[in-house]
């Protein structure tokens, strides 16, 4: 790979705040003409927000973007496209009801005497598509083609709009390996022609295969920019997961404690196409951490454990007896609770009050006939608002008015109100500010000390290493290791995440 030339796009100090959380905090990004540049980070790192600012989908709060040394401030995607910045998303944002040619030229159709010249549009579309290795009839509706072809059509449209900077957001997620190869060849050609390609992905192998440089974001902040060739995979993952240089850890690992009685044991639990069989044991008063990169299967283990997905292999043993989970209701009856990762999608009911959101799970367990008296509901809500320090004037405000951290705490309260024996948490500290991080972690430790069993999925390795008694590491949808006691260190977790799994996953929990 040749050394890319001059700076094409330079973004400095980009900032964007959502209520309660700084989604992007003074981030810099430099793209050089002729380079393929990876943008990496876990969920909530700020990748999407950065793309939204570059493409004008959201207004810039602070900071600047220079393209070819000239300041641009895109107000809309159309505006950004006019200056030469175009994004193509994993979700194809073309229109399935229009023809391929119409999709390519929408908004800039060739006209003749004021009328759209369809014949010319089709001709030019066919020529353009042939440059991208596609020989298809541009008069066909877009919906007639596979996702991979639609993706290439989207890129053809973007490039034809005289894009200087092409942003590809998870373009390979729904492609097979042959289609990925075609896409990579195209990306290299486009870069060679002097464009800059920003490649957002969570497939690290692809990053090493195709990119020149890497920019890593974490928690809305820039972690750093490196040359791909000079960044070992171990260091890259450490950047993504926020491992600090050794000796710099401010989080103190707790002292070893007497383990409680075994509570839940999972033996070779798995589901085809979801996650390979894994095994783990959780005792009362113990935190089992689950670490892994995005897409490693970490959330899927929780779905199986909570009955949200039905396992087709293995068994779950609770208090010495094997149980079958036909659905989350069975899990709730056993005393399991589950705080999902995306609280907007799976968790909170935005229009209901904080009180109603808190009593939801408890009421569901009681059934709708035995309605909780209002006084009891108020008492519960007030108790947890005080206990978890949820910042709100009163319990009757709609939950959507709270900040992310406080929503997360209300969601926790919902499950705590059911007095669960096992609480499953998926990324409990994602998308909330630093102060709320510490509060949630203190709370987890308190619950653990009271004897609750906790199953915590997290991409914050420093935090997991501090509060987890054991850590299960996931990689490529299979169990890649189980760390216990003194083995639980940020470095060991990252080692396990990066080391390829050669042998079948261990069959027995530690």
């Amino acid at each position, binding site marked *: 790979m040749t050394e890319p030339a001059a700076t094409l796009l330079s973004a400095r100090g980009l900032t964007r705040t959502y209520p309660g959380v700084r989604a992007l905090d003074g981030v810099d990004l430099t793209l050089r003409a002729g380079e393929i540049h990876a943008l990496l980070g876990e969920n909530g790192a700020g990748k999407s927000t950065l793309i939204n600012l570059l493409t004008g989908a959201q207004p810039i709060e602070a900071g600047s973007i220079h393209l070819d040394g000239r300041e641009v401030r895109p107000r809309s995607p159309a505006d950004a496209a006019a200056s030469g910045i175009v994004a193509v998303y994993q979700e194809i*944002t073309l229109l399935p009801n229009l023809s391929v040619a119409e999709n390519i030229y*929408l*908004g800039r159709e060739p006209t003749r005497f004021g009328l759209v010249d369809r014949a010319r549009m089709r001709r030019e579309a066919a020529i353009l598509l042939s440059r991208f290795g596609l020989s298809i009839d541009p008069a066909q509706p877009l*919906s007639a083609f596979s996702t991979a072809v639609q993706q290439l059509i989207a890129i053809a449209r973007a490039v034809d709009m005289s894009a200087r900077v092409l942003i590809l957001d998870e373009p390979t997620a729904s492609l097979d390996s042959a289609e990925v190869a075609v896409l990579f060849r195209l990306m290299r050609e486009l870069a060679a022609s002097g464009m800059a390609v920003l490649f957002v992905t969570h497939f690290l192998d692809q990053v090493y295969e195709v990119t020149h440089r890497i920019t890593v974001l974490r928690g809305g902040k820039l972690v750093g920019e490196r040359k791909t060739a000079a960044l070992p995979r171990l260091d890259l993952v450490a950047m993504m997961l926020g491992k600090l240089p050794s000796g710099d850890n401010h989080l103190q690992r707790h002292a070893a404690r007497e383990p409680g009685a075994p509570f839940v044991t999972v033996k070779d639990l798995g589901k085809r196409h979801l996650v390979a069989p894994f095994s783990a044991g959780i005792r009362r008063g113990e935190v089992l951490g689950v670490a892994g990169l995005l897409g490693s299967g970490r959330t899927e283990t929780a779905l199986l454990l909570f009955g949200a997905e039905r396992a087709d292999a293995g068994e779950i043993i609770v208090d010495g007896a094997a149980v079958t989970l036909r659905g989350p209701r069975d899990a709730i009856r056993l005393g399991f609770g589950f705080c999902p990762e995306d609280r907007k999608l799976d968790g909170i009911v935005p229009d209901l009050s904080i009180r109603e959101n808190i009593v939801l799970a408890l009421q569901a367990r009681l059934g709708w006939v035995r309605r909780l008296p209002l006084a009891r509901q108020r008492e519960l809500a007030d108790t947890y608002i005080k206990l978890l320090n949820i910042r709100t004037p009163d319990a009757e405000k709609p939950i959507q008015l709270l900040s992310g951290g406080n929503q997360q705490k209300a969601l926790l309260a919902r499950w705590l109100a059911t007095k669960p024996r096992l609480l499953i948490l998926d990324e409990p500290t994602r998308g909330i500010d630093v102060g709320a991080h510490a509060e949630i972690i203190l709370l987890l430790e308190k619950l653990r000390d009271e004897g609750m069993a906790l199953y915590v999925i997290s991409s914050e390795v420093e935090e997991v290493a501090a509060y987890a008694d054991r850590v299960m590491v996931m990689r490529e949808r299979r169990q890649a290791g189980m760390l216990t006691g003194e083995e639980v260190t940020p470095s060991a977790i990252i080692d396990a995440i990066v080391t390829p799994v050669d042998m079948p996953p261990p069959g027995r929990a530690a």
Partner: protein
Amino acid sequence: MRINARTLPFLATLGVFILLYAVCAIQYPSMLSARVIGNLLTDNAFLGVLAVGMTFVILSGGIDLSVGAVMGFTTVALAVMIEGAGLHPLVSFAIVLVGGAAFGCGVGAAIHWLKAPPFIVTLTAMFLARGAALLLSTDSIPVRHEFYQTLSDLSLSLPGGGRLGLIAMLMLLAFVVGGVLLHFTRAGLRVYALGGNARFAGLMGIDTARTTILVYGVSSTMAALAGIIFSLYTRSGYALTGVGVELDAIAAVVIGGTLLSGGVGGMAGSLIGVLIQGLILTWITFDGSLSSWWTKIAIGMLLFIFIGLQRLILQFSAPTGRTG
């Protein structure tokens, strides 16, 4: 074959129309006469003009419930302006057309910027227009201006003794202009884009505000034109004119092969949809023994069949999965 799957609803409609006409012609050969055809076009001119506007609205993924009320208001406003204020009909026509366009643009702007469902906004507009019409007058006002007589004398002779009156020509003109605007201009393509997926259209750089305003502006302008046609047709203005015709217009568009969810369909189908409704009414008139309300039942059954057909076509033609 994909193209076929998309034009299949239109072809099915055309087939039904031809079949229906054949059955009618066998039973009553005089239905083939130019006079009957001329009357078919004239009697349904206002509905056709409404359907032109409604085609834009439904293709954009919306609905416009206000067109019947806007048409009713227009007939009263014309009668008041011509008979009460003594304005020349042509001046009055210009005023109601501009007023209709402005009203529709307001509706479109409200839908876009209030992010309100078109159903609610146009329902509100329907009440406003109907209420305003009743405020102007609760009685039917006859229009006796001689220019109306001049206009109704304008006609093209059809072979076989029939004649194509001005209002039938206006309807056909509306279909031609609407069809060109929809199928051969950038603005028309934007309407399809909006109906395909409004968010994606925005990401692709389409000005969704302008397109929404255009769509409802066209719809209300057509409603005002339908009001002019109805005023010429009945030579009067009455506030309760056109109660429920918005639903007939929607039915015509859907029978014509346009998907109620937007994005797929076209102008020619809507014309056929209108003519099918007119044909059923004509046939019932020829029969003489049936109540004219059978038209509604026949339309209802046709709609049901067509919606079922569209569902089936969608299921068979979209195995790759829609990204919307």
